[in-house]
């Protein structure tokens, strides 16, 4: 115990000393948002990334946030719940009236940020952006498609988004182990559903549980092969709900078939330690961040393979992909940020958020701190070894320690600045593999539409019960406790619960979205 305490003490000292000692400080006089000698404080809600919370307890311990504070002159008091309690914590803060100035990860607000503005929790950023966030304003007004995604249809702007310079390639793939393919005598990675079926059969015969389906029973890659997306999507301008489409029944039929044959793990609903099971060769495939899987395989001495999106036939054109759809990211953890209505210095809050869209801020968020975790050699950014190994912090954790991987910033693609990809050329290459799939687009993708108060009320009222019902039924269909013969009853039940009302609400919001053009 004593040794541990000592160890902790040394650690703390090291962390405390490091930024000051090791690097040439950049001048903060041009970046400060408050005059020299003064300090300002903002309170910020920012859940602690699960990869980091085993190592630190306050975001202010990270060099990234210390540097951000130095550059902006703004001190931040973080409220950082663990990820498993983040949504409840946010709800509590909102209802208590003790709302932090800034809420990072604002998609936790169940009704959406636009509704949050209407509910009076968040402010409309539109009046502030041109003056206090000129760089962000420039980015979102640079392109019609970015504008539509980053704004709400009536001219309101409810949130800051992470906006990419160039599209980010898909990061989740169904992964395989070369060794397992060799073992079962398969030479090519599967391309069609039939290929997968054949592979699974061989895996099962070899004593491997072939497939760990996602715990909720939805795998967008297989759903996409049936020409749809889960939940709401649009086809030729018409909003649809995936789970009642005929294609979805085919998906469920396939999954049930695989479950019954033993291809899908019996534990998929309550899965745990999947990474380990894959590493030990106990399961054949699962959906996984491809680079993480690859690098882990490298370290452990096996080869991880990426796979193309599954298709019914090799020449099938897939339309479900969402990665290419927009430069505006709205599904990543930290990439969606709002300012609360109780914030007493909204101008400062907006300026602070805008900082990550200015040159020094973009450098900081995307790369980190020069001299500490990266250096520039011949004009090229290169990470220093600490970026992969520092103080026993997990590698993924370091992406939130020296830099802010998912920050709402003007972001470079992972292929440019993600440490895990830059570990080796192979790691980058495997992320890019299949990214140039010619038979793939995002035609079915439903953009970031914003519902007005009535539409939100309708959607929430109707979908709360429908979601619960559908999610349960999907699992039951797959496991077989509900026979697929009852599909029609299922569809009519969902429709009877008022699905059309929700669809109408979504449709009108979608139509408004499409009519939205850049403000003067």
């Amino acid at each position: 115990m004593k040794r541990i305490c000592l160890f902790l003490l040394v650690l703390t000292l090291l962390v405390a000393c490091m930024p000051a000692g090791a690097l040439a400080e950049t001048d903060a006089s041009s970046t400060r948002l408050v005059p020299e000698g003064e300090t300002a404080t903002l309170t910020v809600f920012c859940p602690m990334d699960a990869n980091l919370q085993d190592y630190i307890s306050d975001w202010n311990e990270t060099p990234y946030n210390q540097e951000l504070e130095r550059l902006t002159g703004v001190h931040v008091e973080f409220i950082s719940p663990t990820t498993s309690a983040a949504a409840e914590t946010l709800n509590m803060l909102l209802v208590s009236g003790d709302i932090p100035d800034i809420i990072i990860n604002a998609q936790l607000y169940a009704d959406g940020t636009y509704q949050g503005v209407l509910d009076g929790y968040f402010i409309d950023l539109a009046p502030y952006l041109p003056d206090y966030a000129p760089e962000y304003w420039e980015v979102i007004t640079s392109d019609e498609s970015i504008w539509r995604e980053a704004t709400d249809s009536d001219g309101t702007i409810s949130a800051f988004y992470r906006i990419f310079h160039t599209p980010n390639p898909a990061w989740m793939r169904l992964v395989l182990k070369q060794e397992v393919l060799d073992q079962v005598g398969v030479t090519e990675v599967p391309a069609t559903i039939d290929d997968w079926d054949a592979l699974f059969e061989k895996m099962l015969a070899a004593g491997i549980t072939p497939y760990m389906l996602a715990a909720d029973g939805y795998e967008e890659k297989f759903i996409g092969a049936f020409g749809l997306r889960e939940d709401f999507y649009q086809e030729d301008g018409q909003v649809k709900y995936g789970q009642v489409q005929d294609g979805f029944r085919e998906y469920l039929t396939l999954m049930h078939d695989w479950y019954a044959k033993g291809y899908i793990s019996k534990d998929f609903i309550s899965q745990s330690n999947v990474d380990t099971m894959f590493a030990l060769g106990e399961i054949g495939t699962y959906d996984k961040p491809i680079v993480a899987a690859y690098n882990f395989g490298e370290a452990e001495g096996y080869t991880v393979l990426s796979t193309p999106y599954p298709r019914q036939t090799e020449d099938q054109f897939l339309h479900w992909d969402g990665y290419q759809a927009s430069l505006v990211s709205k599904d990543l953890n930290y990439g969606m940020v709002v300012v609360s209505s109780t914030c007493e210095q909204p101008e400062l809050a907006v300026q602070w958020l805008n900082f990550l869209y200015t040159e020094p801020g973009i450098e900081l968020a995307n790369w980190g701190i020069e001299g500490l975790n990266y250096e520039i050699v011949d004009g090229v950014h290169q990470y220093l070894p600490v970026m992969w190994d520092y103080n026993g912090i997990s590698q993924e954790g370091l992406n939130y320690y020296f830099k802010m991987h998912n920050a709402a910033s003007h972001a470079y693609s992972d292929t440019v600045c993600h440490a895990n990809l830059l570990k080796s050329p192979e790691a980058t290459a495997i992320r890019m593999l299949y990214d140039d799939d010619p038979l793939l687009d995002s035609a079915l993708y439903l953009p970031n539409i914003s519902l007005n108060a009535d539409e939100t009320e309708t959607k929430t009222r109707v979908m709360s019960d429908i979601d619960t019902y559908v999610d349960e039924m999907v699992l039951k269909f797959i496991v077989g406790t509900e026979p697929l013969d009852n599909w029609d009853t299922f569809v009519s039940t969902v429709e009877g619960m008022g699905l059309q009302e929700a669809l109408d609400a979504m449709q009108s919001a979608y139509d408004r979205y499409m009519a939205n053009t850049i403000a003067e």
Partner: protein
Amino acid sequence: MIEKRDLPQRSLTALNYAIITLVALLCLYPCIHVLAASFSDPVRLIRHRGALLWPTGYSLRGYQTVFNNPNILIGYGNTLFYVLVGTAINIVLTSLGAYALARRGWPLRKLFVFLFVFTMYFNVGIIPTFMLVKGLGMLNTRWAIVLPVAINTWNLIVMRTSFAGVPDELQESAYLDGASDLRILCQIYVPVCKATMAVMLLFYAVEHWNSWFTSMIYLTDTGLYPLQMFVRDILLFDGAAGTTEDANAIYLKELTKYAVIVVSIVPILVVYPFVQKFFVKGVMLGSVKG
């Protein structure tokens, strides 16, 4: 007592012993399993199937991970605070209430017993209670964890019953000596009923030690979280699943779970045997109707 030990009777006895022993083993086994697992080698543990009576391989890495986790230490500290302060408040308020309710001849006794016991069977539900705590300005403070549970009515009734058993003469003579009620409580009732007090202490302390739900709904600052919240995170959520590519994080996850269980229940199991002999008294008293 004369008993004819014929064969059926004897086999009945044997069967009885066998079943009881089996139940006891079932109660004991998970604890042994957890203890053994927590000292195991991480990879061998994951591959291990079936019962575990002894560590498979040996490693302390689970415990290292747990003690290197700053949140665990923060949680430990907070839990200690909640247990100490919370239990102190519990015991003081419960004794005061029990003394009054045990007071013979006091005319309003029945009324107050009813008003208190009523709350055991009727509560307004978590939402209004949440709003009440909010209205009191206690959200995200340590008070929200200790004050709303300041008295457990069941414990209050137990203590009252115990106090009611104190002989009248002790009380009367103290009165004649001019002792105040508060003094009588401290110097007569508490020492006389020390077995009950010990059990109450344990009950309250364990309640605080194990509590997590109130922290989840009343606390937003993780710096105030008790241990159980972090334990819950580690045991029931695969938080870091997905993006991590760290062998340590991946392989150690299972081992860490067991280590954190041990770390979180050891303090209770250490105190428990000392208080255990008083249990019968404590629980028995509670069964007497209010």
